[in-house]
């Protein structure tokens, strides 16, 4: 007596065939390839920053840069302070301005992919999300209206930091910056709770929040993210949705690390997008979500 073949459920993986892949298998393969590449790039950049921090801490005479010399946000603080007070911030490294310029060029051409592929603090938050998934901790969904309101937090943070930097003509935020606190490795090489506790509290709160809500820092508080979300409107290359090709399956919404409702995008995906490409890889309909340039790109005719 033959047993009936069970019907495939949406969650069951179709059998692998050595030859032609099904559409589902192709999509899984695309998602896997994306994850491998993105995590490899993110970890490589984070490793570079950690190596720089270790060298700076251990070889003080080597001239190895401190991690704030590798942070583009210092350029924003410096530029604003210079424009508003005609003074330069002390302790700012010339390299910070170069990193700021590099980021500006990158964002104007390729959108905010810096956040999804390069930023080491984004990498830490992505790792926390993976830990959360491995531990089967529940996802916290922020209600849509509250989410929209909280996203303005990036601009509030930015305004506070720029205001205080200009008023005090110091790198005021460096004492609280979670990226600097974590990656400077002062907590490891020269721990001093008496002076570091405010920064450590901010870091703990941010990491805790990122464990509950994926990329909480990027979504709601990152001042650089606020700047980039404005500059993103000028980006040439962006992820775009074709309302005619989109079937409204919503498969692109859940994987977005910053909670963008990609399926509801009118044309270009929100400038909160971090260019991680999770939505594009998850999309089962060819042409519905594409990376495209806003200027005409000539293609060689066959």
């Amino acid at each position, binding site marked *: 007596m033959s047993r009936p073949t069970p019907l495939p459920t949406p969650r069951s993986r179709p059998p692998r065939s050595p030859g032609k892949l099904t559409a589902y298998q192709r999509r899984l393969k695309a998602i896997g390839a994306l994850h491998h*590449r*993105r995590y490899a*790039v993110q970890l490589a950049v984070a490793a570079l920053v950690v190596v720089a921090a270790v060298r700076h801490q251990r070889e003080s005479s080597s*001239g*190895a*840069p*401190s991690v704030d*010399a*590798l942070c583009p946000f210092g350029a924003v603080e410096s530029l604003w302070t210079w424009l508003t007070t005609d003074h330069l911030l*002390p*302790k700012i*490294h*010339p*390299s910070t301005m*170069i*990193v700021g*310029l*590099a*980021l500006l*060029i*990158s964002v104007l*051409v*390729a*959108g905010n*992919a*810096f956040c*999804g*592929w*390069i930023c080491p603090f984004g990498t830490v938050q992505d790792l926390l999300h993976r830990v959360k998934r491995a531990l089967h901790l529940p996802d916290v969904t922020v209600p849509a209206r509250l989410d929209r309101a909280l996203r303005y937090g990036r601009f509030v943070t930015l305004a506070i930091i720029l205001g205080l930097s200009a008023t005090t003509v110091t790198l005021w935020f460096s004492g609280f910056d979670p990226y600097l606190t974590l990656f400077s490795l002062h907590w490891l090489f020269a721990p*001093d709770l008496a*002076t570091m506790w405010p920064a450590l509290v901010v870091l703990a709160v941010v990491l805790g929040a990122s464990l509950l809500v994926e990329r909480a820092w990027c979504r709601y508080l990152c001042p650089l993210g606020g700047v980039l979300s404005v500059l993103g409107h000028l980006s040439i*290359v962006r*992820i*775009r949705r074709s309302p005619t090709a989109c079937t409204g399956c919503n498969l692109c919404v859940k994987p977005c690390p910053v909670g963008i409702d990609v399926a509801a995008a009118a044309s270009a995906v929100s400038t909160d997008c971090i*260019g991680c*490409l999770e939505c*594009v*890889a998850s999309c089962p309909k060819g*042409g519905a979500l*594409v*990376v*495209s*340039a*806003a200027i*005409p*790109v000539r*293609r060689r005719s066959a």
Partner: protein
Amino acid sequence: MKPLRRFVMPAMALALFFGTIGVSQATGSWVTSGRQQVAAGTPLGTADLKGWMTLEQAAEGLGMPVADLIGMVGAPADAVTGATAFKEIEAIVPGFSLTTFRAAVQARLDARSKG
């Protein structure tokens, strides 16, 4: 608007970001520290004082006795020596600011030149 291969986006971001840094390194514009080699005997102004400099280096450049500079720092006895860098003093003397210290040293030098 023509669709591009999706990895063009991160590839361009990486190339432009690290490319700009690479170009700045190749042209000598990439400076990650204010630290420079200061030849012995090079005269310094107060504006040249940097956080990485030791009090000894500063005293030599300014043409002042190192004991005067140590006294001006206002640190507890023996907490600061000639080998202490300005940036280390910030951890020893609460509220120490190199900007304020520069002004104080300049005032001392001005008074000395008038006297």
